[in-house]
């Protein structure tokens, strides 16, 4: 295995959980809801995903458990912010704290257990191709799903009526409501979808990335996913670029250290963040209407007049 190939494989593995979680949050935010609880939903997805896979021995069922955990936690968020119109920021933060605590409790019995990592696709012939074979035709299911997911989200948002309504709800919930669209219902689905994706992204960690469960193993990836949504200016295609840029810089700085380049490691560790900030600045400079990419109703509670 060549070094280039090895680096690309590591980059894909590092980027996939970010991409999955960020994709869900993107849809949620496009509907005008800011859910800061991504970290909490991810870690719950990790705990429940591992539990599911350990009990049944199946990565697929584990992933479903992770999705279910994310949905369950996001349902709590939906009840509070949509049903009771509670402040979204505060609720999201509370959701993270709740998720970290509850996942520790659920996962406590599974610490120190092992499972076999998610199986990789193997197409005889294709998977054996030099370089491309291992990169394109020999990944685990999560990786392929994350790409399909982004394609699906893009198609839904820009090519379907449902996507148009969702964006309308996010941009101006009062008008959408006046036009007769069910604002809260659309938002509920968007929040639950976001939870499902975050749960799946979290489940990727113990099921494929590092096949064991330890409390707190998401280590802040939920926050990075949130930042990526802003970085992508709420567009699915840019999200892929952002997630892979972040993953690539994270891995390359490790390789640079191993090769003994001699740049302070603290600076190297901050490179992924620096790179994202720089690209973000460049993007906003070239765009005429800088900063207006956010859904206009983002973070605002909607209380239908009775």
């Amino acid at each position, binding site marked *: 295995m060549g070094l280039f190939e090895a680096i690309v494989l*590591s980059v894909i593995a590092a980027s996939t959980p970010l991409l999955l979680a960020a994709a869900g949050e993107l849809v949620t935010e496009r509907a005008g809801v800011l859910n800061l609880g991504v970290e909490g939903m991810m870690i719950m997805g990790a705990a429940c995903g591992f539990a599911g896979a350990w009990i049944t021995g199946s990565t697929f069922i584990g992933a479903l458990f992770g999705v279910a955990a994310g949905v369950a936690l996001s349902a709590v968020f939906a009840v509070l912010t949509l049903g009771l119109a509670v402040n979204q920021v505060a609720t999201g933060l509370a959701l993270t704290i709740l998720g970290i*605590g509850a996942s520790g409790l659920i996962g406590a019995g599974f610490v*120190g257990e092992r499972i076999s990592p998610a199986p990789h696709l193997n197409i005889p012939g294709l998977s054996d191709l030099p370089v491309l074979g291992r990169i394109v035709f020999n990944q685990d299911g999560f990786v392929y799903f994350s790409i399909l997911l982004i394609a699906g989200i893009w198609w839904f948002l820009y090519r379907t009526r449902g996507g148009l309504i969702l964006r309308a709800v996010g941009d101006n919930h009062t008008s959408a409501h006046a036009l007769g669209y069910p604002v809260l219902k659309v938002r509920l689905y968007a929040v639950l979808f976001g939870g499902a994706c975050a749960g799946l992204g979290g489940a990727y960690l113990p099921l494929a990335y*590092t096949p*064991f469960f330890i*409390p707190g193993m998401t280590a802040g990836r939920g926050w990075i996913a949130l930042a990526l949504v802003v970085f992508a200016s709420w567009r699915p295609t840019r999200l892929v670029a952002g997630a892979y840029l972040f993953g690539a810089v994270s891995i390359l700085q490790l390789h640079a*250290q*191993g*090769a003994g380049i001699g740049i302070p*490691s603290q600076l190297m560790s901050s490179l992924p963040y620096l790179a994202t900030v720089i690209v973000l600045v460049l993007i906003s400079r070239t765009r005429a209407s800088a900063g207006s990419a956010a859904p206009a109703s983002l973070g605002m509670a909607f209380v239908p007049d009775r």
Partner: protein
Amino acid sequence: MKKLLVTAVAALAAAATALPVSAADKLKVGFIYVGPVGDFGWTYQHEVGRQTIVKEFGDKIETTYLENVSEGPDSERSIEQLARTGHQLIFTTSFGFMDPTVKVAKKYPKIDFEHATGYKRAENLGIYSGRFYEGRYIQGIIAAKMSKSGVLGYIGSFPIPEVISGINATMLGAQTVNPNIKIKIIWVNTWFDPGKEADAAKALADQGADIIMQHTDSPAAMQVAAQRGIYAFGQDSDMIKFGPKTQLTAIINNWAPYYVRQVKAKLDDKWKAEDTWDGLKEKMVMMAPYTNMPDDVKKMAEDTEAAIIAGTLHPFKCPVLGQDGKPVECKGGANLDAGQILGMNFYVKGIDDKFPGK
């Protein structure tokens, strides 16, 4: 929903508060942990120590622990909470609890405190740590024996003296076997991020290292080594479960005998604030079984361990050559002294990486 929330909040509050207990004649011992008890590394080993004193002293004592306490000023409240709820002996088990412990100890002169891996003492504040570099030296010998490529991969957390002395001890041990051994060092700037630790291990393996060593807390690197079919060493606790065919040995932080000793001293009214720095000899640092290696390597490791315990071998025996090849000043007579090891700020000869921050 609201009721559920109230219940959840109440449960959280109960979990966060050291519940006051009535039995006044029991000695109450408190522990502050930086991580979760189930981290399978640093905090887990302190928890094993706590459980041991519970077993040892039964109903003579009562213990409380607070886990996941963030380092820094915030921990002061947690320590003080233990002090206020009648704990007479309090262990704070991470470097970052140092200043808060000093502050609380000043405020409560009648309570005794012990802080792990720090350097600030007081009348009622003792400190304790392990000579982990002794274990690293043995690992260095094993690594050099087992490596085919002659390249070792080392995952560092933060460039602090404890980690630096571990890297140096590893190299000095390895050089006794193979003077041309190479080491690649990657700093992840975190104690705990399984994903990042795994990525670092992959990067090291991809660059030709066939032995992975770590000074971070999770078993992620061990699993990567297992997948790659190379060898690795466990950290803080025995990680053989994560690499039955991969782990060569592990440095085990064995706090239990120390906790038993200190609690006994406290019960007998003989507790004194001391500076304890124990190693293999006192069994504060222990080696997990030597596995997955040929008998001659195993014997070499065992002999080295015996020599360190007997005091005939010191990993930092003078002369210790710095990166420039010149001997480092030898303050301890035959060996580097404690201050030089605890404050180590140089790489030894043979490490061709730049020293962090220089």
